């Protein structure tokens, strides 16, 4: 992933929350915007990693017992 993610704005936060069907009162918007920016900023540490064909670390087990 080489395209930098844009900084989260309050307007963007409102749209994302609406699409996620997440109520977002006006008095929550600023805090949520800052927190999402911090979380996505951390997650973007993955941008530099070449995952190649690595599968996800999941634990589905098809056995019935």
């Amino acid at each position, binding site marked *: 992933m080489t395209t930098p993610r844009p900084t989260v704005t309050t307007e963007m*936060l409102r749209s*994302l*929350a609406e699409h*996620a*069907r*997440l*109520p*977002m009162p006006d008095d*929550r918007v600023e*805090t*949520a915007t800052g*927190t*999402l920016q*911090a*979380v*996505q900023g*951390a*997650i*973007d*540490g*993955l941008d*530099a*990693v070449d*995952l190649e064909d*690595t*599968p*996800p*670390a*999941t*634990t589905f*087990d098809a056995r019935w*017992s």
Partner: protein
Amino acid sequence: MMEPYELTLAAASSAIAAGDLSSVELTESVIGQIERHEAKVCAFATLTLEQAREAARQADADIAGAGPRTPLHGIPLGIKDLCDTEGVLSTSSSRTREGRIGSADSAVTARLRGAGGVLLGQTHTHEFAYGVLTPTTHNPWDLSRTPGGSSGGNGAALAARMIMGAVGTDTGGSIRIPSSVNGMAGLKPTFGRVSRRGITPLSWSLDHAGPMARTVTDVALLLQALAGYDPSDPGTADVPVPHYADSLGGDLAGQTLAVPSNWFFDRIEPDVEAAFRSAVSALEAAGATIREVTLPLTETYMAVEYALFTAEASSYHQEALRTKADLFEPDVRALLEAGELVYATDYIRALRARELIKQGWREMFEMDGIDALLAPTLPATAVKTNDPVVHWPDGTDESAIDAYVRASAPGNLTGLPALSVPCGFDRQGLPIGMQIIGRPFDEPGVLRIGSVFEAATDFANRMPGLV
């Protein structure tokens, strides 16, 4: 003369087995500590003292007839409020669950109860284990400071000698952080070693349950009761459970212990680094060979940790966030809102990167012939409750959650067993911890190293001035 509450769990257990101490005497002594200190420390969400007294009387009757059935028989213990206990308020320290009574014992509660433990109550957690501060509770070493979290009630109650052992959970350090800042021992076992049935999840892929106590021996005795496969928790592994106490003591001849040159030392308080380096020297003196290593893929650790726990926590609390959002504490609500907006593709990228981290650590252990890795449990001691920020000597600030989770995340991401032991005090008298990270399911190995270190030092014997 030493009061019963001052004993380690192992010493109390031996005294009970020898007939020198009854469970009732021990339990009353520990309850006395609660009566003296709980109003200041606030470690418990719920106290069950009358049930505990009855359990102690029953334990004494059983022991008189057939001897103790396990080393935990008759021992006063705490349960993190994230873990359900039947018939007892089990609220995850959240107003969203006010009045909620556990309908059944969690697996860990059942195991401790089945081993004969005397349950004194539910200890505070940072709400839903989603934080590292446990703001309800105060650190007995300095009441103005955090007891860490999220198992902060356990850490504070142990330091104040209000319980002798406990079960906690660890998603981003929540056993090791409070163990470190309260001067206690705590083990995040291998992912899959201890069942999480009946424990409110924070993040299914990162959650671990494990023991906390004053000493490594105490932790080993608790783990013996807690460990084991449970088909009702798909995260547990069907791996034989060894006899952990057999691994304790001796020396470290032939052991190769690694000290990372990166990540843990990017930002660290000078007193913490000095205590850690001194601890490494003590282990070298005990016979270990020390080798420096470079940790792989460090740039991904916080990315993977945050992607996994934010998305998974928001999935679990999705409905509550729409029906009673106002009842969440502001810090937890903010993280839950943000987690709703993490893309699925980012979450899966994190799961794929986690696999690379696992492979990278395996190669590091195997190519360098490492038995365990040593690191500071945290880069800093307990922060002030009213200023939960680490102020670095270079003038920069870092939130406590970032600073504490930064050092803890490798243990959660790799799933490897990670034991925190006290390794010193800073110049303000606050405890410092060292973590010992081992190979998968090598709890005996990390406990052995921890026990050798503990035997060479006296940090585990110190008590806060409050006590």
